[in-house]
């Protein structure tokens, strides 16, 4: 389906060539009108809050407005260079990279283990799946409230049960060397059950007779995993990696509730930095510049996920 496709229309031979084209266009538009009207409500909101918002960020990034009342100044690319020179921003980017890899790898690995172990459906596996899936359903804010106590120094759940085995009790959220890893645990706990679902769905496409045949040929479970299951799951892996990366950039509720980016910016992530600039420092210019940089950085990922999507969707 393309714009250039000619519409088959009965046009009188006497119509001059120019007018011919005009009629064709207007008729094409007329037949398209019902579709446009049906799409209108969606397009209005998508334009406002996605494409319009991106336009807004592009403009806002060029201006400076130190306080809500101060006059607006055109500063060109100053906001971008200010953000890039801000150690809090570069720190947040590095934290976010560590956080993305450190949450994606374990949660995807665990998800695969869970899916392999629970691929058969019976009462026991259904109950176990439900247990692993529960964290997906609860708000990150609620998970954070529970983990605040789990990580509480001395009296918390971790110290009460495991901490006693250690010579020195760590302050899980209060130590800038540990805090980022502590909040990663929540994310792994929360997301592994979600990714498990996609692997469970992917495992259904592994043919059982091929597995049986490989077994008869003497292939052990690890060999079958390596040579039959993993190749079959490749699209699922790609897809889950994209989702996990997006999650690592867009989910910061736990940072807000548990650490506010601290201690000494050790748990600051990019989206939280953007929030801080906009809401705590009223610096729309800098917040917009940081948003723009993050969006640009996600473009590569966008292209990748676009391809994964297009493969799954099959286009219009």
């Amino acid at each position: 389906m393309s714009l250039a496709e000619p519409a088959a229309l009965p046009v009188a031979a006497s119509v001059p060539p120019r007018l011919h084209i005009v009629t064709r266009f207007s008729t094409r538009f007329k037949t398209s009108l019902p579709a446009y009207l049906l799409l209108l409500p969606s397009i209005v909101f998508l334009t406002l809050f996605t494409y319009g918002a991106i336009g807004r960020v592009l403009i806002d990034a060029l201006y400076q407005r130190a306080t809500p009342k101060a006059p607006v100044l055109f500063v060109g690319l100053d906001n971008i260079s200010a953000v890039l020179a801000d150690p809090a921003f570069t720190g947040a980017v590095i934290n976010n990279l560590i956080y993305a890899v450190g949450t994606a790898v374990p949660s995807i690995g665990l998800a695969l283990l869970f899916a392999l172990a629970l691929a058969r459906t019976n009462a026991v596996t259904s109950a176990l799946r439900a247990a692993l899936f529960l964290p997906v359903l609860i708000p990150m804010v609620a998970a954070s409230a529970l983990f605040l106590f789990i990580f509480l120094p001395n009296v918390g759940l971790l110290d009460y049960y495991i901490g006693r085995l250690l010579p020195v009790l760590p302050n899980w959220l209060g130590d800038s060397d540990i805090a980022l890893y502590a909040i990663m645990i929540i994310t792994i706990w929360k997301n592994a059950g979600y990714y498990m679902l996609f692997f469970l769905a992917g495992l259904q496409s592994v043919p059982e007779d091929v597995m049986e045949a490989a077994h008869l040929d003497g292939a052990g479970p690890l060999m079958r995993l390596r040579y039959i299951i993993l190749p079959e799951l490749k699209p699922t892996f790609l897809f889950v990696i994209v989702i996990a990366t997006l999650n690592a950039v867009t989910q910061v509720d736990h940072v807000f509730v548990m650490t506010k980016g601290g201690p000494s910016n050790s748990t600051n992530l990019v989206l939280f930095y953007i929030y801080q600039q906009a809401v705590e420092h009223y610096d729309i210019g800098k917040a917009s510049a940081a948003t723009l940089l993050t969006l640009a950085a996600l473009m590569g990922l966008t292209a990748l996920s676009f391809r994964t999507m297009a493969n799954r969707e099959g286009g219009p």
Partner: protein
Amino acid sequence: MKLIDALTKDTPLATRREITPKLGFALTVLLALVWLIPFLWMGVATLRPASDGINLMAELMPSLKPTLDNIRDAWEIGDFPRYFLNTTIICTGILLVQFFTITLAGFAFARLDFAGKSLIFYLFLMQLMLVPVLLIVPNLRIIAQFGLYDTLAGVMMPFFASAFGTFLMRQAFEAIPTELEDAALIDGASLLQRIRHIYVPLSIPSFSAFAIISVTSHWNDFLWPLMVINSPDKRPLTVGLSVFTATAEGTQAWGTIAAGTLMVIAPLLITFLIFQKRFISSFVTSGIK
């Protein structure tokens, strides 16, 4: 290994005698129990009397003298009925408008032929990938320009259109045989009548899958309502819980925090336990997101 044997007795013939899959299963059982610990603590701590003191707060063995005091305290300190109402209004409002927008747009993509179809389709597709969560700053400015700052409508508005829902409905509508529509066409049914009386009733499973995904995600949303809402009486559950937690944390009232958290997550958890299968399949469907 007797227990594991019993639990895995319907495994395929190939793996029945192998040790590695059993170890994997045993590890999964263990981890599933670990996964439940935060929920277990929440339940136990909610019912623990304050007289047990802070030193027993982490004890996972339930207290022998359970009390409802923590629930009562949480109920009195936090304005939970109000938060609950606000979240319900937000989720319902978003969902109703979404049903309207995704039905119309999904139908246009599934059944109509129009100029610029591919272009518009890719515009929708891109929206999925542009990570709207990142656009909180410009969206807040747009909401403010509409005069919707500090209103529930402002929280809802950016989600009124859903590219994901549009694609879901497009797939559902495409699966409906055109013969049904042709019959209605002969009877003189208008476009909207055909959508209303043929396509919508036959796509109820897709609508309910979408409803589960939409309500779950907006029920749990935090950062966006936090930015839009200023008045305490307009807070949704998530924002209310974060304020409540911050207040109670200062007084070390962990039993109250557990009770408050329980109140916030109970509705979704109970709904999930009743409609487990439907939830899981909806979340798998959301994979096309």
